[in-house]
């Protein structure tokens, strides 16, 4: 096999495509995103890519062996509340689980905030008489008459999707399956989700909410993916299409349509996949990903070469308890608007000028000052060479916007812009600090990996705020998420609650059986997609008896065969707890709540391009006057990122530009172009806050 592989990342403004050729060469292309039907923008971007490669699109696609796609269709459906009309069949006596939201309400001091409408209105949450006990015994048999009554109501309500959510179905899904089969028979074409299939785990709110989200976005995602397949087919592509899921692995489109709630973080997952790939290439094992786009900044941690996963995710206020990358999103990006807060202090974001009207300097009708306008005014961006010269920036418009804001603060336009840039840096640094303290790590031990169109102008200053000494910006910073999608493996997560009423951790034999069953189930699923090499990983969610938060404990390193397995599992938990929270309580009862197995199908590695021959260091292409944090100015040399020679060294202040991104090196920064495709920057020690 020696074809092209294409990664496609649909963002709010642009659709990025990255292609790795048979020779290992990487090519980037982009086109405007088409929110109404994202697949139009995808095909348009592929057209741009084909042109860049000098091939007709059908030829390129005929020679493409794999397409991996990151989509925001599910995310947008949740954020904009444009999902399917969903009903729920649920255990009689418990129909309000998803609307009770565990008794929690956001915004502690906003008592006038109206409650959000639930994804499934109460009138469509239909009680069915049935009830299991925690140990699997049937307390109330599934009552066919009440099921038939509920199904008749579904038919009358003309729903597009149904979530079937019964108590304790994690223990035995038989009732859910019977109800699901009955719905499928009575209402062909309706999208059916069983809670025990989406998330076979104890804790009804998490399971029901995840199932409701799946049913809500499922029909939308399924329709989109089938349109995408059709368009790609018309354009000449017949190969496999994979979708990157929230946990960072990929799965075939059919699986993504089935487990649509698992695509809610599909967009930002590519960036983390890229960080993992760069870690494997030698960038370092401990990375903070710092993905700055137009409206938001995504932050995640790679520790010892692994990305942290969690299950506490909410998107659009709705809980999705599937395994997903632990990505924190801040409302700060290039389009974030600087304004005077209600208390009278300068604020940046979370409101954003977005793609329309965009920053004032875009000249599309935006008049409010944004971070991008500030960066332009400070000399960090070139008005004539933004996005490779495809967009001219209006310096005067940016100046007007900041003059107006500055007047209210007693500052001139440049001072207000400098303040905005600085405040954006502090805000981003605080986000990273919070993300790292949540995981109990010190950011100073990490490399800050900046990517996305806007990270390069902030990454060095943010590192200083945090006391981080090492920064990296990949050459393909703007398309890195799409690139990352090509470097991740197939992944299927399978889990089952083992919460037992007697033993906190099941006995040895029960443990072995439980994990072997999960592995067999996962391998069978992956075998249906993929014929290559498959690995499995074992882990468990565990806690002390009286605690409520479980922690994930990796169990791969254990001896699974000799006696005393349960004791070793307990000890693995104590150690993990100690590592995370500084203490263990070895006399306490340990409870294993969920057993989990990840089945990973290794996709063939990407070819690595030959290292470019040593070349003469590139000379600056220009000089630009920039404003520095101390209020002084500097004549900074401007370099072409793509022209930098391997191992070429640069000292700040300097500006490094490519078609898609700009990197600002501050005084004291020592940068080196790494032949593997990134600019590595040593940042001087600063008094970190």
């Amino acid at each position, binding site marked *: 096999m020696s074809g092209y592989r294409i990664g496609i990342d649909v963002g709010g403004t642009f659709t990025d495509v990255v292609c790795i050729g048979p020779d290992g060469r990487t090519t980037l292309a982009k086109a405007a995103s088409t929110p109404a039907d994202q697949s139009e923008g995808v095909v348009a971007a592929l057209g741009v890519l084909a042109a860049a490669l000098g091939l007709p699109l059908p030829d390129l696609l005929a020679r493409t062996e794999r397409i991996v796609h990151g989509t925001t269709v599910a995310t947008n459906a949740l954020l904009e509340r444009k999902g399917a009309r969903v009903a729920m069949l649920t255990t009689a*006596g*418990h*129909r*309000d689980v998803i*609307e*009770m939201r565990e*008794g*929690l*309400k956001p*915004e*502690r*001091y906003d*008592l*006038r*905030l*109206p*409650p959000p409408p639930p994804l499934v209105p*109460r*009138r469509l949450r239909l009680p069915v008489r049935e009830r299991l*006990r*925690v140990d699997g015994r049937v*307390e109330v048999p599934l009552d066919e008459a009440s099921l038939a009554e509920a199904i008749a109501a579904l038919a009358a309500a003309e729903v597009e999707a149904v979530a079937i959510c019964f*108590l*304790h179905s*994690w223990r035995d899904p038989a009732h859910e399956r019977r109800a699901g089969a009955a719905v499928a028979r009575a209402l062909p074409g309706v999208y059916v989700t069983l809670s025990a299939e989406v998330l076979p785990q104890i*804790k*009804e*709110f998490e399971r029901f909410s995840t199932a409701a989200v799946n049913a809500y976005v499922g029909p939308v995602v399924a329709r989109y993916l089938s349109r995408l397949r059709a368009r790609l087919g018309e354009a000449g592509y017949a190969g496999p299409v994979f979708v990157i899921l929230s946990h960072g692995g990929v799965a075939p489109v059919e699986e993504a349509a089935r487990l649509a709630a698992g695509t809610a973080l599909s967009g930002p997952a590519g960036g983390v996949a890229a960080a993992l790939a760069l870690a494997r290439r030698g960038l370092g094992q401990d990375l903070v990903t710092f993905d700055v786009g137009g409206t938001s900044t995504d932050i995640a941690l790679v520790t010892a070469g692994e990305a942290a996963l969690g299950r506490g995710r909410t998107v659009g206020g709705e809980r999705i308890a599937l395994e997903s990358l632990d990505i924190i999103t801040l409302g700060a990006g290039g389009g974030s608007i600087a304004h005077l807060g*209600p*208390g*009278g*202090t*300068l*604020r940046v974001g979370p409101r954003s000028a977005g793609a329309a009207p965009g920053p004032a300097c875009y000249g599309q009708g935006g008049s409010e000052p944004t971070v991008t306008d500030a960066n332009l005014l400070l000399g960090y961006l070139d008005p004539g060479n933004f996005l490779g010269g495809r967009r001219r920036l209006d310096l005067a418009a940016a100046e007007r916007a900041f003059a107006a804001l500055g007047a209210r603060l007693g*500052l001139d336009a440049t001072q207000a812009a*400098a*303040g905005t840039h*600085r*405040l954006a840096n*502090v*805000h981003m640094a*605080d986000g990273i*600090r*919070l993300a790292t*303290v949540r995981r*109990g790590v010190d950011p100073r031990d990490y490399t800050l990996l900046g990517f996305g169109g806007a990270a390069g102008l902030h990454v060095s200053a943010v590192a200083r705020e945090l006391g981080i000494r090492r920064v990296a910006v990949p050459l393909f910073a703007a398309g890195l998420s799409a690139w990352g999608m090509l470097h991740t493996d197939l992944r299927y997560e399978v889990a089952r609650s083992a*919460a*037992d*009423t*007697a033993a906190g951790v099941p006995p040895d034999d029960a443990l072995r059986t439980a994990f072997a069953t999960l592995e067999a189930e996962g391998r069978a699923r992956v075998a249906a997609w993929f014929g290559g090499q498959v690995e499995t990983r074992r882990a468990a969610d565990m806690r002390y008896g*009286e*605690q*409520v*938060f479980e922690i994930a404990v990796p169990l791969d390193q254990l001896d699974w065969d000799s006696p005393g397995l349960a004791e070793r599992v307990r000890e693995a938990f104590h150690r993990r707890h100690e590592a*995370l*929270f*500084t203490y263990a309580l070895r006399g306490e009862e340990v409870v294993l709540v969920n057993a989990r197995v990840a089945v990973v199908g290794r996709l063939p590695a990407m070819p690595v391009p030959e290292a470019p021959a040593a070349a003469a260091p590139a000379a600056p292409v220009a000089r630009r006057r920039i404003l520095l944090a101390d209020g002084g100015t500097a004549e900074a040399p401007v370099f072409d990122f793509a022209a930098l020679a391997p191992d070429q060294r640069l000292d700040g202040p300097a500006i490094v530009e490519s078609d898609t991104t700009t990197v600002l090196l501050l005084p004291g920064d020592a940068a080196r172009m790494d032949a593997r495709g990134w600019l590595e920057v040593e940042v001087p020690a600063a*008094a*970190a*806050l």
Partner: protein
Amino acid sequence: MPPRPAAPDPVTLAVLDNRFRAIVEEMGEAMLRTTYSQILNSSRDFSIALCDARCRLVAQADHIPVHVGAMPFAAQAVVEAFGDAIAEGDIYLLNDPYHGGSHLPDLTAIVPVFAEGALRFLCVVRAHHTDIGGATHGGYNPAATEIWQEGLRLPPIRLGEGRRPREDLLRMIAANTRLPRDVRGDLMAMIGAAHLGERRLLALLARHGAGLLDAAVEAILDLAEGHARRIVATWADGTWRGEAFLDDDGFGGEDIAIRATVTKRGDSLTVDLSESDPQTPGFVNSSYPNMMSAVRMAFAFLLDPEVAKNDGAFRPLAVRAREGTVVWAREGAPVTMCTSHCSNEIVEAVVKALANACPERAMGGWGRRFRVAIKGRDARRPGREFVWHMFHARPGGGGSAKGDGWSTVGEWHSAGGLKFGSVEMAEARFPLFFRRHEFRPDSAGDGQHRGGLGGELELVIETDGPAVANTAGDGARHGSAGILGGRDSVPHDYRLRRADGSERALRTKEVGIPLAPGDVLHVRAAGGGGWGPPEKRDPAARAADLAEGYVTR
């Protein structure tokens, strides 16, 4: 008073404002990750504050509203008790409601921050502990008639020096509780969070200097004051009264009144609670800091949520009260219930009065707390006793100008910040069967915007042999208040149905209720109060309520 240093430039000010907020947030995260007990790591019953050397609240993390306004009193109590003896590296602790605390279960750890030879800040961490000794498990003792029956009392003590707590004191405190391991683990987490705050502030002080930080604090407080005053100035001037009633004091006294007279002029207001009923024999009395906090909480709820909750924001507010009343008990009286009751009634009385000044900001009453704890044995785990605290079947929130209330989010004092656990998990861990847990239709107060719904729970007791329950709370006679013509909600209705078919209503302050397997606890919680006259409710909303089953008629 020393002369005011010049204010920092607006950008530095914004940066420092951000940093103060981020530091308290980070302290809160550290706390969440390291506490041991369920009430802290799941229900998040703790709060963080940062005070300056004058014990003024500079920044707080949004955790439990009823803690927030009370924290500066804790800082003050430490400064009053130790004065110039406070040294870098010291750790202070208190819980005494008559010396800086609110009620005994809330322990407060305080770490001073020194720079350039002087006290600059105090990092304050308050957390509700699972047990604090006294006559009943968990600290709520409706039979208590004096504070010594409520648990271990700690006026401000120096818990340690050189950033290390004294081992003997830790042992002594832990030994006075039923759950020494939890209390110790949680105390260590509190101290750890306070030290994290100290570290961050020291770095900030080193970078900017104490003078600049002082100036920034002044400016931040002044800006919040200005923000709050600008809002208050838009309200109508006048004097109004608001009244709210506790069900009873647990000793036969009923309808205990909290009376607020609020006078609003220009950009300030005075809340006078001195006409409230005399203090009671039982634990619904409030301590002084808790009363102040309840009034500030009510005020904060009526401002914009964006107003920084710091000392400046509370400057437009003056509070008057009389010692010896239920809102300000004399030293020695029991007060454990006060963070819920009479806090909630103080908020309700203040909001009722101010509804006249700012009707668009007022909200219908949020529900009252009615606790149940069950102690017994589980046949699946022989040889050990369990205690289960009910957080299910929560009451509803009140309606407001912006819409109907939230359902099952709880009470004024926590405002949707306390989580109830999973039913499936509770059945796995306790010998209890949740036959029903869903909304209680018709439980909300009607109005142009109705209240949120309360919850309903049918809980079957399946213990191994007899068990025992305690209750603590209020609201079985008085529902959540309707406002501006909105209706009150129905009150709580808790019943015990015996296996033999007999049934009785549970009172809100009972100790030692015997339970037997097969008994059913039937809890029907109050909804929230309505906002505005019911006649003005949109007919479409009324039809939707009926279709959704929020109401049945």
